[in-house]
């Protein structure tokens, strides 16, 4: 039995190296993320074509449903004041969900590479910090670290830095663990079917034990949870946390 659990495959590596970052690499997750981006772009372009005010087509009804759902989602969690966040949240949700779901068609899910989530989390961290500074001013932002008493400053800095790290690791860990557990179950089922069918006498047992029959069907049940439910769940959680943190950052201390 050979089980291989690998990171993303590296397609290309530069011969020179960039200071601080090391060698540049083009990995499977990078390529697949770009495939998803192009897919979302084409889908948006197709859905947004030929819109009319009256006698709307089925396509337009779907597009309107998606846009309205996204706007209601943002308005319900952040308030009307932040309605301009709807496109960002919609893009983040569709990107994250489609990246995780791409494992269903055999692509390497970009979300099971920590770099993807870490870049999203850093983007969100920049937005949170920007919102805090815009609300309280630079002085107020820096003063916020010394609350309630100056002794707490190191802990406040750690808790500030923990936000992007925990967001990234939560998403990464969930998708990654799904992949690892699916691989292990798949390998274990192959061994099990070899052992069970090997008990059959004669040539029948020898032939059947070569075919991992238990791999049919059973992994699909796991896939429903790990691929479908977990992917959509994590995309939802990531967007929800983004909205909550940004809305929270915009609240002024009385």
């Amino acid at each position: 039995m050979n089980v291989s659990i690998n990171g993303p495959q590296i397609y290309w590596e530069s011969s020179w190296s960039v200071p601080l970052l090391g060698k540049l690499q083009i990995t499977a997750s990078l390529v697949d993320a770009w495939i998803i981006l192009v897919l979302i772009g084409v889908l948006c372009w197709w859905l947004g074509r030929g819109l009319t005010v009256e006698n709307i087509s089925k396509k337009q009804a779907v597009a309107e449903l998606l846009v309205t759902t996204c706007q209601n989602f943002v308005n319900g969690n952040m308030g009307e004041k932040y309605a301009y966040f709807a496109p960002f949240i919609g893009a983040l949700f569709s990107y994250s969900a489609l990246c995780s779901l791409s494992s269903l068609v055999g692509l390497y899910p970009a979300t099971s590479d920590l770099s993807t989530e870490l870049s999203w989390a850093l983007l969100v961290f920049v937005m949170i910090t920007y919102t805090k500074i815009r609300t309280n001013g630079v002085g107020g932002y820096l003063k916020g670290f010394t609350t309630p008493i100056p002794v707490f400053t190191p802990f406040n800095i750690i808790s500030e830095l923990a936000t992007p790290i925990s967001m990234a690791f939560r998403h990464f860990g969930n998708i990654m663990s799904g992949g690892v557990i699916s691989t292990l179950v798949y390998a274990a089922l192959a061994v099990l079917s070899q052992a069970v069918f090997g008990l059959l006498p004669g040539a029948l047992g020898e032939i059947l034990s070569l075919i991992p029959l238990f791999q049919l069907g059973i992994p699909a049940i796991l896939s429903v949870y790990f691929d479908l439910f977990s992917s959509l769940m994590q995309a939802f959680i990531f967007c929800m946390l983004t909205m909550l943190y940004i809305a929270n950052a915009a609240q002024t201390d009385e």
Partner: protein
Amino acid sequence: MLDKAIVLAGCAIGAGLALIAGIGPGIGEGYAVGQACSAIGRQPECKGDVTSTMLLGCAIAETTGIYGFVTGLLLIFVAPGMFTGMLG
């Protein structure tokens, strides 16, 4: 040879111990879901709000378990290579 064996054994034991972190989120999420169920039982009309809040809370409670899992993964896939490389 022996020192490498000790490093590998330590990594494997550590990975197993790291997954003890799964107990806490299990208990916490079970409690949260139980409370959400009783809340829905008392007030079925606020099912949507309760469900979305519960899922968010569960995801946050899961974080510590995920940390344990990531630590376990690092101990299995990254640490042995790193430490045996240090031994030379």
